Structure formats: structure tokens, C-alpha cells
């Protein structure tokens, strides 16, 4: 086979491919073909079933679901047929056949079978649920603290808002007051400077005459 991208001859090899199962992506090593030049990899029709099986296995492992061998072993230990085993598990016989044939069980089905096969699973599951409940409880317990923080922030915000509101609604008055203050300050400053200048002039200081002219101009 020639590579679709670079036309080089592709070789059969174990390749790493990403597969998808029930919305989860898993990487598996499977038989396929690889281009030694550009690295392009793909699977042939004959490798497809194997690839799919590996992806399912990886998914099952990641999700910690029951293995096929585990189900088969449990049935054999009970010396049960698929029918009687299905009756014991309270599931359909088709489900048992599918599961033993490699089908990946849904989470609920997995838990149901585990509880039937291993009664202690119920305890584990209950503990998990209790753990979840406790986490929720912990989160709820933290809520007053969170709400106090929220109100603190809110109060700060409303203070800012009040100040802003005060300024905007009394804008004219605020500006008028600011201008008056500025004028008063300016007047005082001018007076100080004039006084200082006249004192300098009186003392006959030549250097200060120039500065006095400037200050008078400022005052005007």
C-alpha cells in the first residue's frame, strides 16, 4: 500500500491510534500500517475488529467496569448456565450473552451485577454515595462564610455607588464648592506672595525684583 500523503510504501506495524468509545477518547497500540517517510498511520479492514476490541478494553479499564473474564468466572464458579445466571442476576439472558461476548456494560448494569455477585459492593457504593453527600454537606456548611464574603463585597460596591451617586446628583454644588475652594486658596497664595515680594523690595534685594514682577503678573 502506498501512503496517501507522500506515496511511499507503507509497512505493517504496531501503531498507536486514538479511538473513541462512548464519548471518551483512548489511545491504544494496535496492528495497522505505517508510512516510514511521513509517519501516517491507519488501520486496514482486517485490523478493525481488533482495534475496536482494544479500545473497548481500554475504556473498560479506565472506567473500572466488570471484565468479561470476571463475569465468566463468576458464572463458572456457580456452575450456572447462561439462563440460570441471568435469572440469578435478574437480567435478560441476552444481556449475559452480550456481556460474555465482550459488550461493555453501562454503569448502572455494572453496579447492578456487582451488587448481585458481591453483596459487599452495596456497602462500597453506599459509602461512595455518603461521601458525595458529605461533600455536598461540606459545601453547604461553607455557604454562610461565602455569603458573608459576598455581602462584604456588596457593601463595598454599594458604598462606591453611594459616593458616585452623591457626586453625580450634586454635581453643580460639588463643582461650585471646588471652584470656591480653589479661588480662596489662590487668593491666599497671591496675598502671601505679594507680602513676600514687598518685603523683599523693601530690603533692596535686586534679585527678587524680577521674581516679584512674575508673581504680580500671576496674581493679576
Amino acid at each position, binding site marked *: 500500500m502506498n501512503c496517501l500523503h507522500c506515496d511511499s510504501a507503507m509497512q505493517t506495524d504496531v501503531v498507536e491510534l486514538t479511538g473513541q*468509545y462512548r464519548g471518551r477518547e483512548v489511545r491504544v497500540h494496535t496492528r495497522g500500517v505505517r508510512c516510514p517517510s511521513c509517519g501516517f498511520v491507519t488501520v486496514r479492514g482486517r485490523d478493525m475488529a481488533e482495534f475496536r476490541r482494544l479500545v473497548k478494553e481500554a475504556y473498560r479499564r479506565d472506567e473500572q467496569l466488570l471484565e468479561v473474564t470476571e463475569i465468566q468466572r463468576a458464572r463458572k464458579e456457580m456452575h450456572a448456565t447462561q439462563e440460570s445466571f441471568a435469572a440469578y442476576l435478574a437480567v435478560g439472558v441476552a444481556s449475559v450473552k452480550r456481556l460474555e461476548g465482550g459488550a461493555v456494560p453501562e454503569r448502572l448494569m455494572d453496579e447492578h451485577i456487582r451488587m448481585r455477585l458481591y453483596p459487599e459492593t452495596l456497602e462500597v457504593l453506599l459509602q461512595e454515595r455518603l461521601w458525595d453527600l458529605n461533600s455536598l454537606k461540606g459545601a453547604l456548611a461553607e455557604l454562610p462564610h461565602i455569603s458573608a464574603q459576598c455581602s462584604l463585597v456588596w457593601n463595598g460596591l454599594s458604598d462606591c455607588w453611594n459616593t458616585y451617586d452623591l457626586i453625580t446628583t450634586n454635581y453643580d454644588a460639588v463643582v461650585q464648592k471646588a471652584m470656591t475652594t480653589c479661588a480662596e486658596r489662590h487668593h491666599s497664595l497671591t496675598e502671601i506672595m505679594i507680602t513676600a515680594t514687598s518685603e523683599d523690595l523693601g530690603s533692596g534685594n535686586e534679585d527678587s525684583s524680577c521674581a516679584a514682577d512674575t508673581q504680580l503678573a500671576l496674581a493679576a
Partner: protein
Amino acid sequence: MQRRTPPRISAPPTDEELQLSLEMAREILADPDEDWFPANTFKLDEEFERLGLDTHEAQTDALRRAAAEVCLADYEQPEPPGLSNESACRGTPMLPFYWQSESFGSLMFFKFGLQRHGYLYVFSLHVPDFPRKRQRKR
């Protein structure tokens, strides 16, 4: 097997082009030493699972039956054929067929493409959820 160069597909494909493509697909599927390739492994594998085709032999047999049963009148699209966007065979013209299958016992949909080197890519084989949309213009 001496690999043939696939025909250049016109828009819309001519009878000769379709016939030659079908013949090439049939030849590849009939040869046990030849490989066919899934365009999208997961999509195709799910379809095979729904049809109850677990093994490679069963899958190849189903494809062989599909390729043998379809004829030019079953070609779906009168417009220019769509080009594949799958990374495995990007740019390959896709040839879809709808037909009332005797061996599958229902209306079926089969879509394949021949990559420019003559390799067979299978896009789809399933029972369609909707009735046939368009008839080929003759």
C-alpha cells in the same frame, strides 16, 4: 493482483466511471489477499455492530454482497460526488448507493470510494433511517 488506477470521477459521474468503480470494488473484495480500508473506523464499526457483523470475514462478505447487488440505477447522487474529509482518505470521491437488498432483506445504503492509488475505502454500510431521497437522472 495488478492494481488498476481508478477512473477520474466527473460531475456527475458517467455510467462508465461508475461501472468501472464498482468493478474495481468487487475485484478488491473478492480477492482474499487484498485489503479494504475503513474511512472512519468507529463509524463503520458501529454500523457493522448494528448489522451483527463481528468478524472481518463476515464484514468482508457483507461488503462483497453489497458491491455485487448494487447497480448504476442505485447510485444516489446526481450532483458532483462529495469528497471525503476523513484523514485516512481526504479528497477521495465518495460513491453512495441505495438499493433494496435481497440478501440483507431491507433497503440498504452503501458508500465507498477508490483512493487515487486504487485502494478501496468503505465509508458506510447500513439500513437507512430515511427513504431514498433522489433518483439518478438517466
